[in-house]
């Protein structure tokens, strides 16, 4: 620890701290443009000049580390003169654009010029003209005239994200920020440069010329699209959401968002949004529709009892909304058929759940079928940040495809589809063959040997699994057996073994907290009972079962058999004539509520706008039905998902370990095998802003296979057939997918008509449309 004096106040900070951070701890504001704690010191803008005793000239506070007994002055004539000079230089070529600049009013160049700058400049020559409102990509605009060349954006994309798609081009005053080769940036994280830019050089294209800091309302919120639950701010103007920004939280979050979350806020304004109620294909008033549904529930209860009603939760509903539905279902209807719309069969007990803090301490990261860049992009950034700070970080991907990337390098253990759990169990057995749990796991495996994984790899994996000090696993939840192996692993290792579930829906942990079952088996049971006629009425909240449930045929059969299917949601489900009533629901920005993310952290999202049209919160429907069923619910006490003992994290409940023998993975025969995985662009509600970036070729196929099948090197459309069903989709070439496999995003419409397994691929003929 080092003691120093800043402006007469003494402070003790750890060695290596920069003066600017030490000053911030004292509440002394030193102006900065180029410095960002996540990116480290650079000293490009010279804005943070301070006076340090015994230093001959002014020093930059962001690149000067503290030293014992240092005396720093952040104010005074010398500092003022230095800052005035720096600002005069910065403003030489800066256009007088503030009235038309989106940053006007929240711009650091304005603020610091006002506070520290000269009243006017002495530079008389005409300002240099550069590109204005040029594109970085579909979402980000660049105004090169306004740039102060702090390089935050370039360093973020190059060093932090690792996809160097931005660069400084030119020399001297002609230097501009642009994309490499002037092609649009394709990274998932480009939107963050808008938040990072201290001036108005990088702007959000959808927000362009839409608002001003004084006529917008900002509310703290949580991104509802994936289980990461990034902290964000929603900007609304005149009752309309117009922007999402990251919300940094000291010592926890930098406020990064992925482009899918940052620009996907407009799903509430999608032209297809459900704004009126429909009963049996006829548009009707909200009151009529709600009453009709209430009568159906009443009829079902009278004829077959409450247990003939099933309730399924999905979409972007908050924990409180799930609680309200749960109370209605249990107290008024009297049913225990409550499930969450899941796409994966796995389940992770709370006791094994890790937090993002674990990533900051990890020395080994295990990617179990989950590619964080595709599934949970901001976790990819967190992992990369750990790798940047701790270069000995071991990353091991275990799954049917390569899961590590150039931006998160590591080692890959490529297993045959559905053999990952067995590989993990066998790896454990190489080290602890005598352990009872491991023995149980292996009981039924016999002399099974995984294809493509050598015994040496298994031994090495086993040593690493048990030797790692802090092992963080990211699990895609596809294979329930893997959940069991992970529980055994956590039991075997005496050191921390946190697991982060990357599967959705975004708020599944919250709905589980509210009283819904997150187990896939319960969802399947409800659908099977519906198919068999045991359940007569199904209430679906927010979920698009037809696309979310992995087996579309079962959902279809269930919907065909059900007497009444009631769907509440933001988007009408695609092509489902069996839906008897469609009720418009409120989106995440229209209700206050709590989201619980993949680290079991409770985060509050405020309501920013009013629901449009007939859309209304779940509570309204539930209350009306409760009245119709003559069992009004009293809501005197507000239920809190928070727990006094646990704080922000859900309380830990020890989960008993039930180990059952692993089944021998069935051998899958076929030239081409379909596997599915999470892709953030295909998940959650559709957005119009995102359309240009939704991958046109979402399928991934090995280049060799593509060559054999006659697919163009740039990809193209192919027909995927499996028995009677087939699907035409775009394919791109990806060497990360091994030969003989086809990867498709699990939530892409139509993918769940196929089952993972053997398929036949053929080139799709160009369909001639009149």
């Amino acid at each position: 620890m080092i003691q120093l004096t800043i402006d007469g106040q003494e402070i003790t900070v750890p060695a290596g701290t920069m003066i600017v951070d030490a000053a911030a701890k004292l509440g002394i504001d030193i102006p900065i443009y180029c410095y960002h704690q996540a990116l480290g010191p650079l000293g490009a803008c010279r804005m943070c000049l301070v006076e340090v005793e015994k230093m001959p000239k002014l020093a930059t506070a962001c690149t000067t580390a503290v030293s014992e007994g240092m005396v720093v002055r952040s104010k005074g004539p010398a500092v003022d003169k230095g800052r005035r000079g720096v600002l005069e230089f910065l403003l030489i070529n800066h256009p007088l654009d503030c009235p038309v600049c989106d940053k006007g009013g929240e711009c650091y160049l304005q603020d610091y010029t006002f506070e520290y700058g000269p009243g006017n400049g002495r530079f008389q020559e005409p300002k240099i003209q550069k590109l204005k409102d040029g594109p970085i990509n579909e979402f980000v605009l660049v105004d090169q005239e306004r740039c102060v060349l702090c390089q935050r954006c370039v360093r973020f994309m190059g060093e932090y994200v690792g996809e160097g798609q931005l660069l400084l081009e030119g020399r001297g005053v002609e230097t501009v920020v642009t994309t490499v080769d002037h092609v649009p940036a394709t990274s998932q994280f480009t939107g963050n440069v808008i938040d990072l830019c201290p001036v108005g050089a990088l702007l959000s294209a959808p927000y362009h010329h839409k608002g001003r800091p004084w006529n917008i309302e900002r509310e703290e919120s949580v991104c509802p699209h994936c289980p990461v639950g990034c902290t964000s701010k929603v900007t609304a103007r005149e009752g309309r959401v117009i922007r999402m920004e990251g919300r940094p939280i000291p010592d926890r979050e930098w406020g990064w968002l992925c482009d899918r979350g940052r620009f996907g806020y407009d799903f509430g304004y999608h032209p297809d949004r459900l704004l009126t109620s429909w009963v049996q294909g006829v548009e009707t008033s909200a009151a009529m529709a709600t009453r009709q549904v209430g009568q159906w529930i009443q009829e079902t209860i009278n004829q077959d009892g409450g247990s003939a009603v099933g309730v399924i939760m999905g979409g972007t509903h908050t924990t409180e909304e799930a609680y309200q539905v749960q109370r209605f279902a249990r107290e008024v209807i009297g049913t225990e058929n409550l499930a969450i719309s899941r796409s994966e069969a796995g389940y992770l007990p709370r006791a094994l759940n890790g937090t993002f803090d674990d990533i900051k301490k990890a020395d080994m990261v295990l990617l179990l079928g989950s590619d964080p860049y595709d599934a949970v992009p901001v976790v990819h950034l967190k992992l990369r940040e750990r790798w940047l700070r701790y270069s000995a970080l071991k990353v091991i991907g275990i799954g049917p495809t390569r899961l590590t990337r150039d931006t998160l390098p590591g080692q890959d253990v490529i297993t045959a589809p559905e053999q990952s759990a067995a590989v993990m169990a066998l790896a454990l057995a190489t080290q602890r063959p005598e352990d009872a749990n491991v023995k149980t796991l292996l009981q039924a495996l016999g002399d099974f040997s995984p294809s493509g994984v050598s015994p040496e790899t298994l031994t090495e994996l086993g040593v690493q699994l048990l030797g790692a000090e802090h092992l963080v696993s990211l699990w895609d939840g596809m294979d329930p057996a893997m959940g069991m192996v992970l529980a055994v692993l956590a039991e075997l290792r005496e050191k921390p073994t946190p697991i982060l579930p990357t599967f959705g829906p975004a708020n599944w942990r919250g709905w589980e907290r509210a009283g819904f079952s997150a187990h896939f088996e319960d969802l399947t049971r409800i659908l099977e009972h519906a198919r068999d006629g045991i359940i007569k009425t199904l209430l679906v909240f927010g979920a698009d079962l037809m696309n979310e449930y992995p087996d579309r045929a079962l959902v279809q059969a269930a919907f065909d058999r059900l007497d009444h299917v009631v769907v509440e949601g933001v988007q009408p489900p695609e092509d489902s004539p069996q839906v008897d009533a469609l009720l418009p629901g409120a989106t995440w920005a229209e209700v206050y509520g709590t989201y619980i993310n993949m680290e079991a952290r409770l985060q509050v999202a405020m309501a920013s706008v009013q629901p449009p049209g007939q859309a209304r919160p779940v509570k309204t429907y539930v209350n009306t039905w409760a009245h119709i069923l003559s069992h009004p619910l009293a809501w005197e006490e507000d239920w809190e998902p928070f727990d006094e003992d646990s704080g922000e994290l859900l309380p830990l409940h020890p989960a008993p370990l039930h180990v059952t023998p692993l089944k021998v993975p069935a051998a899958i025969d076929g030239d081409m095998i379909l596997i599915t995985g999470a892709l953030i662009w295909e998940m959650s509600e559709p957005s119009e802003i995102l359309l240009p970036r939704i991958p046109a070729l979402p399928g991934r196929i090995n280049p060799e296979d593509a060559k054999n099948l006659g697919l163009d090197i740039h990809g193209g459309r192919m027909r995927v057939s499996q028995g009677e069903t087939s699907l035409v989709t775009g394919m791109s070439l990806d060497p990360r997918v091994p030969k003989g496999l086809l990867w498709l995003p699990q939530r892409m419409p139509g993918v769940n008509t196929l089952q993972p397994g053997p398929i036949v691929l053929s080139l799709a003929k160009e369909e001639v449309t009149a």
Partner: protein
Amino acid sequence: MLDGVKALIKGLGVTSKALFEPRDTISYPEKRREYSPRFRGKHMLAKDTDGHELCVGCGLCEAVCPAHAIRVVAASAPEGNPVSWTNRYSVDYEVDLIRCIFCGMCEEACPTNAVRLTPFNELAASNRLDMIADKEELLHPPVRK
């Protein structure tokens, strides 16, 4: 009684004297008073010599307005049809003349000198909605007779 007659004559004297004095009132609306050149009446939005609107929709008038009487909605200029002199223009510009206190701060804050307060002061209307001046109305300011 004499006192009464005296008072009556005195009163009539004042009245008849006033008959020949210059009048304090004018016969509005045929005749109108001369106002100070700095008089602040109804707003207008100015255009430049090429016919482009000066207003860029920056919203500073909205921010500075102490009565919250102004609403500005801006947008990017449509392709090939620059409404204003730059790439941003105001789609909506509304002044609520009931709220307005005619302080002139909007005029002072305007960086492009687009919003100006004209001497026009005949603001009566029979309907509250008519008292909200929209952009079209502000672009065609009435002339004070």
